[in-house]
């Protein structure tokens, strides 16, 4: 026990003395939360549009003002010809061009179906569709006011119930994702690099020659990272609860338990990587490509897994982050009973066992 404590202390000192890494590790979750919370959105807001008004009459002018006033668009260009539109698109000055036919009001009043053409920059197809929808909405509304007509009532009243996230905040989705990601960085990446570094610098030889058992060395290596991940999780919870207003609906105890299990899985992944990699560079590359990238892309944090092709869905099944994120989403956001996350718990615990077994087998207490 005394040996373990002094070894763990040595590891803590290693980490604390590396001020830069320490700072980044503690600040990273907060920055990620802020980025995902405020910067990574698909909201349409003040998108630059251009207008070619061939009609230049009262109604068309009011229409353009309406578009400019709306929170979605700001009219930055008034065109005189089609060729100008083409140019503006290619300079990416505008995302949407609206062309109003000549004699617009006259045709509208005489019911000749005047045409409004919208050219959307469909480089980003989803964004283009949204822009066209919003612009059509603004135009239809504005024309409705012109004619003061009534909206014909629809006969089926569809009631839409938004379960768990009625305000549609994106933070509900990414908070679990950020947790899953940060723990992989701290536990898997940092742990593997720190073990391989001892080997690369030659200090591993000293450790192995000491009377300390290899298992104690490994345990004392991972203890500090275990503590740092707990701090990170706590930070994420505090930021999401107090700043982002994400509720914690489920039982704190089971969420805590889940985090511990996931941290253990990630730590054993880190140990496994360290037994494979011979240099820090290799350890970094392996953990970045095999662990980090899939934890971001295939975990359901940003992109929906069930919309992916089957091969990728298959790969996603072996990512611990996927199971963790799915479970924490259910426990924390949906507030479901623990029995609904039984499967996730089971998968994570068995992953943990398998990984520890493999790394114990691969771990050598001799240097080649």
């Amino acid at each position, binding site marked *: 026990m005394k040996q373990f404590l002094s070894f763990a202390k040595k590891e803590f000192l290693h980490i604390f003395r590396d001020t830069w890494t320490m700072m980044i590790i503690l600040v990273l979750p907060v920055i990620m939360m802020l980025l995902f919370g405020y910067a990574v959105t698909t909201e349409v807001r003040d998108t630059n549009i251009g207008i070619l008004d061939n009609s230049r009459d009262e109604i068309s002018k009011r229409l353009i003002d309406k578009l400019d006033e709306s929170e979605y668009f700001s009219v930055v260009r008034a065109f005189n010809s089609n060729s100008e539109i083409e140019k503006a698109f290619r300079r*990416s000055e505008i995302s949407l061009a609206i062309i109003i036919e000549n004699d617009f009001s006259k045709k509208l009043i005489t019911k000749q179906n005047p045409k409004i053409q919208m050219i959307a920059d469909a480089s980003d197809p989803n964004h283009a569709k949204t822009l066209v929808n919003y612009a059509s909405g603004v135009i239809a509304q504005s024309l409705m006011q012109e004619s003061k007509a009534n909206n014909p009532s629809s006969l089926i*009243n569809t009631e839409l119930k938004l379960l768990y996230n009625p305000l549609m905040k994106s933070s509900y989705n990414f908070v679990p994702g950020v947790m899953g990601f940060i723990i992989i960085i701290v536990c898997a990446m940092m742990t593997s690099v720190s073990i391989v570094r001892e080997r690369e610098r030659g200090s591993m030889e000293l450790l192995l020659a000491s009377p300390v058992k290899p298992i104690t060395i490994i345990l004392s290596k991972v203890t500090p990272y275990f503590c740092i991940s707990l701090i990170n999780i706590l930070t994420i919870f505090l930021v999401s609860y107090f700043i982002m207003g994400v509720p914690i609906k489920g039982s704190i105890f089971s969420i805590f338990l889940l985090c511990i299990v996931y941290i253990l899985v990630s730590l054993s992944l880190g140990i496994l990587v360290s037994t494979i990699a011979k240099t820090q560079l290799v350890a970094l590359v392996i953990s970045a490509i095999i662990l980090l990238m899939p934890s971001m892309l295939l975990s359901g944090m940003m992109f929906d897994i*069930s919309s992916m092709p089957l091969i990728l869905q298959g790969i996603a099944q072996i990512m611990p982050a996927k199971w963790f994120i799915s479970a924490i989403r259910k426990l924390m956001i949906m507030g479901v009973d623990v029995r609904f996350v039984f499967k996730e718990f089971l998968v994570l615990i068995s992953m943990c066992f398998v990984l520890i077994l493999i790394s114990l087998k691969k771990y050598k207490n001799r240097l080649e």
Partner: protein
Amino acid sequence: MLGYLIEKEFKQIKRDWILPKLILIFPFIALILLPYAANFDIKDTRVVVVDNDKSSYSNQILNKLRANTSININYFEDTYAKAMDLIQEDRADMIINIPSGFEKDYIVNKNSKLLIAVNTVNGMKGSISAMYAQNIISDFSLEKNSSIQVINSPSMEIQPLYAFNKTLNYKFFMVPALMVMILTLICGFLPAFNIVGEKEKGNMEQINVSPITKPVFILSKLIPYWIIGAIVISIGFLVAWLFYGITPQGSIFTVYIFSFIFTLAISGLGLVLSNYAQSYQQAVFMMFFFIMILILMSGLYTPFTSMPPWAQAIGSFSPLKYFIDVMRCVYLKGSNIVELLPQLYALLGFVAVVNTWAILSYRKKN
């Protein structure tokens, strides 16, 4: 002198166990897999239906839903509570609840109710699925009473035209930008490891006492990654063409010019961090920290203009933003270099600032 140093760099890279594989294979795999993963398209919404009416109308609605490719009716339950259990187990995403008397209400009272409950933990997925279902149901309603007269509503025709990507293929949008991301990962992280590697191995000591001048040293580090960048981006062009059939609408020459400039900027950034870092761990975390911010704020996944003004201000300091913009413009819109001059100046500015910084921050004294 410079020639020998570059030769040394290439020998080191070639003899490394993982680097040559990383440079040649990673762009292939990443570009083949990423566009399938990084996709905001929503398909396969799993639906559980609670049909308490079991009438011909409710059946017609269900058939309409089945005909839609993005909606899969996976379960039928008797009660809403049982359907909720499926949502909680994450076996379904949406509940469509048709109350008893739906058809009767529709015909007799001209007003019937229907409930769509959708899991919106993932807000975007939830709202898109709900929109699909709502559209189908209002289509049904329109069909059923085509006799309705739209009397006073203004009649006008809106003709949307989706320029530059007529088939609305999301991959056409993502592939050129993902090439930028892959280039950033390889030509950003590897230089960041490079000088730190020399420090950890002790080579730095020898270089510091040699007559190599600062600019020559930085250039000897920069040029190899410049060449690697050209290889990586060429692999990218090849995969995009062979695998996705995507070729630039504009000139490939333009894309190459920009990628040469961009590689200098991002490798320079790696070298700057590498000068400050003392260990691999420090270098990787600093680089990761910056690259993550640069990528998320560059408009790669979400539109740049959707960000709040403060975020756009920070984002305009991301060289990725400009290069991604260029790639999409040239690939999809066929823009030429004159139309992309602002982006060109911005990138050249980055190259100048970052590489001057790299030379200045390299110190021969400890």
